[in-house]
């Protein structure tokens, strides 16, 4: 636990930690300002659900923002968190010093992974809180109409939205773990983060082609918008369950490889 506490202190001393969080929080701010001031327009059938009616219900802000988060910003921020863990210490030349302390490499690796997860989680929580507070202040708190047409009370809806945020963070943890694995392989945090983001993007593009449908059940990127199924009535659990199994297997496998690599790595700096 001490390792974890020390890792958290480290990232709190870095400017990029706050830059990442600010970038995330900008999204709800933009959505609310635009939703409040934008003239209502006829919904376009191509628009993702929830986004068009943002100005009618503060809760919809949380969901509209979650769309942007799940498809772009959270994977980027999570990849940064994962990549900076091992590689940026190697760059700064402090990894060797860290390993001279009586800590196991496994403990160090897991502490770094947990810190990165916590970083993504705090980012998502900040977004959730900002969009809830500002969204409700701007547009009020109303019952949420589900995709099946039924209505959910605001409190019940809030619970489901919280689950949706957790689901999206779980998806981002896959990107994060890829970045962590790469940051044990290379000594450059930039390389690790870029490859992790590129993998997510390329997988997302491949998911769009029907030829590559055979790999859809196995790629974590295919599940990035599964949270929508929480807002059907009754909740359509099957894809969510599949997503969680897929995330679990992906993260487990990547962490194991990262552990195998880091366990025997020559730490030169």
């Amino acid at each position, binding site marked *: 636990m001490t390792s974890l506490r020390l890792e958290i202190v480290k990232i709190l001393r870095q*400017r*990029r930690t706050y*830059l*990442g969080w600010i*970038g995330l929080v*900008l*999204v709800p701010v*933009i*959505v609310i*300002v*635009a939703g409040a*001031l*934008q*003239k209502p*327009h006829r919904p376009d059938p191509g628009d993702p659900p929830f986004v068009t009616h943002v100005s009618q219900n503060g809760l919809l802000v949380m969901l509209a923002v979650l769309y*942007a988060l799940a498809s*772009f*910003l959270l994977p*980027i*921020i999570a990849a*940064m968190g994962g*990549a*900076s863990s091992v590689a*940026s210490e190697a*760059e*700064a030349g402090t990894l060797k010093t860290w390993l001279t302390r009586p800590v196991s490499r496994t403990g160090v690796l897991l502490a770094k992974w947990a810190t990165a997860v916590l970083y993504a989680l705090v980012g998502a929580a900040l977004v959730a809180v900002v969009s809830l507070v500002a969204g409700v202040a701007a547009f009020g708190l109303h019952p949420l109409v589900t995709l099946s047409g039924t209505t959910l009370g605001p409190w019940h809806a809030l619970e489901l939205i919280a689950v949706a945020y957790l689901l999206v963070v779980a998806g981002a943890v896959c990107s994060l773990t890829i970045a962590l694995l790469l940051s044990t392989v*290379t000594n*450059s*945090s*930039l*390389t690790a*983060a*870029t*490859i992790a*983001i*590129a993998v997510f*993007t*390329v997988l997302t*593009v*491949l998911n*769009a*082609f*029907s*030829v*590559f449908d055979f790999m859809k059940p196995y790629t974590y990127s295919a599940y990035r918008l599964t949270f929508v199924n929480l807002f059907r009535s009754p909740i359509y659990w099957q894809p969510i369950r599949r997503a969680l199994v897929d995330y679990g297997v992906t993260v487990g496998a990547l962490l194991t490889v990262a552990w195998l690599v880091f366990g025997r790595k020559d730490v030169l700096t």
Partner: protein
Amino acid sequence: MGTLRREFTKILFQRRTYVGWAGLLAVPLLIVLALDLSSSKPAPGEGPPFFSAIANNGVFVPLAAIGALSFFLFPLVASMAGAFPLAGEAEQGTMKTWMSRPLGRGTILFSKWGVAILYIVVGMLLVGLGGLLAGWLVFGAHPLLTLSGTTISISAGLGRIVIVNLVILAALLCMVSLALFVSTLTNSSLTAAISAMVVFVVLTILNGFSYFDFMKPYTFTSYDMAFINLFRDPIYWHPIRNALLVYGATVAGLLLVSWLIFRRKDILT
């Protein structure tokens, strides 16, 4: 020029360079593979611009590939290319040595900017030539159908594809300059690259809301579809001219600020 040559040698000795190029080259090849294997061809207007035309004409492959890449993956590579030359040297502790040579700081800054551009140009050549070759082998080469319904010869079409690449290169210069600018402020290449990406994503989200239309003429991200106008007959130059003006102003502004900062920066490593 000697400085630029040395910078280029530096990046040729980094693994990341080849990972980026290989990733870019994979995209047109994957597109050809996917469209060749799939039994149902994409309907007109489906997918990224010019996608549906590929199955009848391989010459469209380099065009569709660069178009699809220009929305996310190429900006990502550009921010990596722009962030690394300066901040990467600070990370490895070689910046001070480099500066001890009889070189002006302006020369160093601009050669780092130049090498990032060179990196992107090589990536574009790989995408263009690789895509053209693969598309020609699989789908054949025929005169091209423009968006206005007229037909242009293969050589004229290739000429326009080269101009498309130049327009997109100008857009990517904005990302390179943005990443270079942030990398004069921080000593971490990861922070620089991710900040540039966050700015890019946030601007893209802003462009998506009609309330923020007033800033659209001034943001470089809102011209991402301008290259399509090159495939009208006659070419519709107006939006392309606007795009190039904004790109030019953005790049010049960012470079100027980077130079002002770098000129007086304390180089500690």
